[in-house]
């Protein structure tokens, strides 16, 4: 026997006999039941009517029972971003990812097809893989030696005839498979064996906006390894922020913006920003510091021409007209992204600001703890100097020690802390409520900056899902 906690096997081990054809496993398991308690049902009913009036009850953020309900009713039935195709470029490449705490393997099969499996052996539930990334031709459980191909099919086990014989229903020994769909290279999975909608329907009108960061060049994006850290806040604080809070930037990130060249930050241009409730709980915001989409004009004007070929006509029109310096959004429930100019080498001049693109998952650990997964991304055909400076600008601004992001943690931690209150606090997320919706030739409900419209769409969808 090959020793140790083995996942990486270049070829099928000799001691394992072939017992099956190369047929694919189509084994999907049901998700657990969850019935709301009377208490939770009452709280959510109250939340639903408060949200209609522009309030968010703080108990939605921190209550442990609400969190328990979210596990099944939100995460187990949404399309969750797991990985980008560029993280597993070659056959046999895999990464280990999570939906809430459900452990998953995202693997590119020998047939180049991407599949997602539960990281647990169907025999006794032992997790197959403890490494977070690797390459393999087969997957072997280190507990009893069951070996699977990258399609999730059992190909054998030690002393197989004596162990499971010839007549057993081998489907019981196939890996648990999870539904997977890919949008523009972004791999999403849904734990529900019969998803209520497909990924395209789930993203809905938000595709229009998501394309603006994911589909500007035919060459596609490349992701770095994720940076991960654990922070004592509830995941929803970050989702609320990315879905629609750009208003906080000039206070919370005062020291970050102080690094920008003075002449570029003018109140009148900032106020031409937009905030969007794109439906299904997806929110996005656009703020304007300079008149160039995310500062690409200074670095890579060609991208603005390239995007004309990949974006739809209306997307392109919107992007060059409105998206300007910052795009920040959140795909429901917990997949955020940011595309903005950020300072590298100390900032202070326009030449020291480079565009960055980052994606992150607010991966929930408990009602008051979240693991942040933070990726940098850039178009494969970006100029080499931009690749370098963009990464530095990202690392110095939107990471665990980013001069911007560092300060976000304090907001989310203390919101979660305040949520432990015994009082029914109702928060007035009413910024912009008085303002009319505007037509900018783009889908969803759009308001001028500043507005809580995107954040409120997140909370509304959350409560809808919990009450479903």
């Amino acid at each position: 026997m090959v020793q140790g906690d083995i996942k990486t096997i270049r070829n099928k081990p000799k001691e394992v006999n072939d017992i099956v054809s190369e047929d694919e496993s189509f084994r999907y398991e049901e998700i657990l039941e969850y019935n709301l308690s009377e208490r939770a049902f009452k709280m959510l009913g109250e939340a639903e009517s408060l949200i209609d009036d522009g309030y968010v009850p703080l108990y939605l953020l921190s209550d442990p029972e609400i969190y328990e309900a979210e596990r099944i009713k939100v995460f187990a039935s949404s399309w969750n971003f797991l990985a980008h195709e560029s993280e597993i470029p070659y056959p046999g490449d895999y990464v280990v990812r999570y939906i809430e705490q459900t452990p998953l393997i995202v693997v590119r099969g020998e047939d180049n097809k991407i599949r997602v499996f539960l990281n647990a052996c169907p025999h006794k539930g032992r997790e197959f893989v403890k490494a977070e990334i690797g390459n393999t031709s087969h997957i072997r459980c280190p507990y009893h030696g069951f070996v699977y191909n990258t399609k999730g099919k059992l190909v054998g086990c030690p002393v197989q005839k004596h162990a499971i014989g010839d007549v057993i229903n081998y489907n019981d020994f196939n890996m648990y498979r999870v539904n997977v769909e890919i949008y523009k290279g972004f791999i999403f999975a849904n734990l529900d064996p019969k998803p209520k909608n497909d990924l395209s329907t789930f993203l809905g009108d938000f595709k229009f906006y998501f394309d603006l960061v994911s589909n500007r060049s035919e060459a596609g994006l490349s992701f770095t390894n994720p940076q991960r850290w654990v922070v004592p806040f509830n995941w929803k604080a970050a989702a609320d922020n990315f879905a629609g809070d750009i208003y906080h930037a000039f206070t919370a990130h005062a020291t970050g913006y102080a690094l920008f060249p003075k002449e570029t930050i003018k109140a009148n241009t900032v106020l031409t920003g937009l905030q969007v409730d794109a439906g299904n709980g997806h929110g996005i915001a656009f703020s304007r510091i300079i008149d160039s989409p995310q500062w690409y004009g200074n670095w890579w004007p060609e991208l603005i021409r390239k995007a004309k070929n990949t974006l739809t006509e209306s997307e392109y029109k919107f992007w060059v007209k409105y998206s300007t310096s910052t795009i920040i959004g959140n795909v429901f429930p917990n997949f955020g992204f940011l595309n903005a100019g950020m300072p590298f080498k100390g900032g202070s001049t326009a030449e020291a600001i480079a565009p960055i693109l980052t994606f992150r998952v607010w991966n929930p650990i408990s009602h008051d703890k979240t693991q942040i997964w933070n990726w940098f991304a850039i178009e494969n055909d970006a100029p080499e100097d931009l690749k370098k400076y963009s990464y530095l600008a990202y690392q110095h601004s939107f990471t665990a020690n980013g001069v911007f992001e560092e300060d976000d943690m304090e907001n989310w931690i203390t919101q979660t802390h305040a949520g432990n209150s015994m009082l029914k606090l109702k928060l007035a997320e009413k910024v912009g409520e008085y303002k009319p919706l505007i037509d900018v030739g783009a889908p969803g409900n759009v308001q001028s900056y500043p507005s809580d419209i995107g954040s409120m769409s997140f909370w509304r969808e959350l409560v809808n899902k919990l009450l479903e």
Partner: protein
Amino acid sequence: MIYSSKNMDGNHINDLIDVLLYEAEILDNHQYDKWIDMLTEDIEYKMPVRITREKEDKETDLELSKSQYHFIDNKESILMRVNRYKNEYAWSENPPSRTKHFITNVRIEKVNETESIVKSYVLFYRSRRDNAYPEIFAYERLDKFRYENNKWKLAKRNIIPENSVLPLMNLSNFL
């Protein structure tokens, strides 16, 4: 304090250990201007992300990400961070973290009149706000010091974190 001496000048060894202890003191006292003075103009300050990999893949080299860093700084960007921390609106450090850098397992790999290579382990202890329980983070430093104007200055620091997932709510302190 444990250190090895391989045919090295005893004075230099003591000097370098003093430098490490002095640095810990000024970092823990947030005396960042004094810290800046300890860095060479061409300082390279890095902490790559650590990746959990299988044994057969495991060479420290592969375990350290080539694409993602917790720190990748030079003098300019360190100054940017330092100037920010001086500002009362740098919310992550206001109120400031209380930290202790415990330096141990010091190994001086090479020392001559102009340069030294020093390895050490650090246990970083941090208390914030009214939390009774601290954050604790261990890492190894691979340092290069250069002798300039009668002082040992830090020219290169590679920080090798023990964790693939940081057990810190942010990284608002130098390591």
